[in-house]
């Protein structure tokens, strides 16, 4: 049984493009200070950043929770928003419903969720149309992904 070392929760606001990414950089600082392996940090922060951008671009509000144990980092991003009608489509690289405004921000090219999955050891996504989406990711501390 793994032991929980640290747990933090952050509120994310939809359409707040200016602040998008602040939570991920804060998580990076926390993990760096704890001396976590730099490759693990990079994977965790890519997952958090992509998830943060998804909330900012598509949802009204969301919560990012990350839990560090002596074995792994668990990340859950739950949002209140439009939901995803077809998750298989959303996980296909290059598939996107982004607006021009989102693309001008440098996001929305159909790589967000695939990036989250690519950088996770375990990945899950559940979505209810009109309600919201929850993405969970687990990254092992001794992983080499």
């Amino acid at each position, binding site marked *: 049984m793994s032991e929980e070392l640290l747990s933090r929760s952050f509120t994310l606001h939809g359409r707040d493009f200016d602040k998008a990414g602040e939570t*991920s*950089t804060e998580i990076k600082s926390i993990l760096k200070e704890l001396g976590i392996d730099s490759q693990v940090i990079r994977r965790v922060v890519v997952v958090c*950043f992509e998830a943060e951008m998804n909330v900012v671009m598509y949802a009204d509000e969301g919560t990012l929770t990350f839990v560090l144990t002596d074995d792994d980092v668990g990340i859950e991003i739950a949002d209140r928003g439009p939901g995803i009608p077809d998750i298989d489509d959303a996980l296909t690289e290059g598939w996107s419903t982004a607006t021009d405004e989102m693309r001008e921000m*440098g996001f929305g090219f159909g790589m967000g969720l695939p990036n989250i999955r690519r950088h996770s050891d375990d990945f899950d996504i559940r979505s209810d149309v009109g309600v919201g989406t929850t993405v969970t990711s687990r990254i092992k501390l001794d992983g080499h992904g």
Partner: protein
Amino acid sequence: MNLDEIAGILDCEMISPADREIDIEAVVASDGMSEILAFHRPHALMLTGLTNIQSVRTAVVADVEAIVYVRGKQPTQKVIDLARTSGIPVLITTMGMFDCCGKLYKEGLEGVM
């Protein structure tokens, strides 16, 4: 190849403090931030035409060594300030993305993917 040599090849202006000796071994070039985040190689340089705040946050998350903004695009002071506090050197070149990639490839640098 170090950052100083790259600045010479791309005729760059350095707009935030940088250790010119930083070693660069690979290049990731895109205006799509998720493309930059998708794959990783240590000691990578990021080339982009996107000059907003997210370009710097992406550079931090992707662990790149420096950003080169192409086509002479000028980031705002807010973006430069974030790059400075994040310890990311920022350079600007008037060259386009294609020419930058071609010149760096010719000098022996490879893409991150």
